[in-house]
């Protein structure tokens, strides 16, 4: 099956169009999803399409918190559901199985309690279920800045996104709680916690100065339904630490806001 390469990056309201463009070019990205992008779509297109070979398109959306640029013609990416923070689109490429691409930027911990964040995930899960029923398949890619870690209630709860760290567990497709069935997501971001690879132990660093402090967080995530997870290679997912010669991290591994954003980009490939 052909692989499609995705890039997600919360660019933190910074003018990083040139860097996004270089990143997309270096890695041959097909679909770019950005959060906190204050660069006008026209300016971003100019940066992305500085060479005639690239040809990124901007499929407009009512959703304001995430924007998408894609090498695919706009007609292949049609809106299914849109709200301020959630956009679900039907990605239907010629001779390929259609997928749903859900992009999110969920409310921040600065303003929302963990309980409210979890509640938002319950609603998000319901919305995705509805759109999957309408689409007639469950090949859903959910990506974005969740402002929650993969272990938090909204992300793991059965009534929430019901995401697990294991493809084997996710391949069961559903779990039953009190006689009710809930569909799994696979969350490959679990593989990227900690400092086994390098000093960058997550996608976002925050020193909370309170008793419970994880320091490193994985707010930027991609979740896949089992049908897509089955063909997903976790080694094809990375947290990006450099764009060419330019480092996006400081010597201690934390995001370098002088060069990039306070969030690090994630790159991944999905076969469908």
């Amino acid at each position, binding site marked *: 099956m052909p692989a499609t390469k995705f890039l997600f990056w919360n660019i933190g309201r910074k003018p990083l169009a040139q860097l996004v463009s270089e990143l997309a070019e270096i890695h041959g990205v097909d679909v770019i999803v950005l959060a906190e992008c204050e660069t*006008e*779509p*026209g*300016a971003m*297109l*100019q940066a*992305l*399409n*500085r060479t*005639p070979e690239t*040809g*990124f*398109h*901007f*499929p*407009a959306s009512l959703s304001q918190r995430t924007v998408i640029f894609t090498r695919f013609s*706009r007609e292949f990416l049609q809106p299914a559901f849109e709200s301020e923070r959630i956009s679900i689109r039907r990605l239907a490429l010629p001779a390929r199985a259609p997928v749903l691409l859900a992009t999110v930027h969920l409310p921040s911990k600065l303003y929302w309690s963990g309980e409210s964040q979890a509640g938002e995930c319950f609603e998000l899960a319901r919305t995705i279920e509805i759109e999957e029923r309408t689409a007639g398949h469950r090949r859903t890619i959910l990506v974005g800045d969740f402002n929650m870690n993969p272990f938090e209630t909204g992300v793991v709860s059965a009534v929430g996104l019901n995401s697990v760290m294991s493809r084997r567990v996710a391949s069961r497709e559903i779990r039953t709680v009190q006689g009710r069935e809930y569909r799994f997501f696979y969350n490959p971001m679990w593989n990227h916690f900690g400092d086994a690879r390098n000093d960058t132990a997550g996608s976002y660093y925050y020193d909370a100065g309170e008793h419970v402090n994880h320091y490193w967080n994985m707010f930027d995530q991609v979740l896949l339904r089992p049908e897509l997870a089955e063909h997903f290679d976790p080694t094809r997912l990375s947290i990006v630490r450099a764009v060419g010669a330019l480092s996006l991290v400081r010597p201690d591994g934390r995001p370098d806001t002088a060069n990039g954003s306070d969030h690090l980009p994630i790159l991944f490939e999905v076969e469908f």
Partner: protein
Amino acid sequence: MAAQTDFWGEIVPAEERTPLAILREQAALLGTKTKNLVEATVDTSVNPLARNEFIHRFALVVPSLGNYKYELFRIEHGVAIYPIHTSEPPPALGLETEQEFVDWLRRKLSSVETKRIIANLLAQAMS
């Protein structure tokens, strides 16, 4: 029982390039010239007033301006394809051949008026 006789004979698509294919070719070329700030689309429908006629609407689209759409022109033709009637003169009587249609389309797309419209849309998309 006698075998059924096939009155249809062999059926193959017409070899000539259709106006729709020509319009789509030209539509696809615009995006590469404008870094996809201004794109062109062709929407095809059936003429509600003359059910056996096709209408192809050629429009400019600016995705970054909320998918702003400007219909540059439209053409109509029947199942015989030619003559093609354009939404604006000249010629008022219709285009009788592929060459006449291509010549008309070239004049239309490269006209001062079309370039002015695209330039204005580009300026807005970039601002």
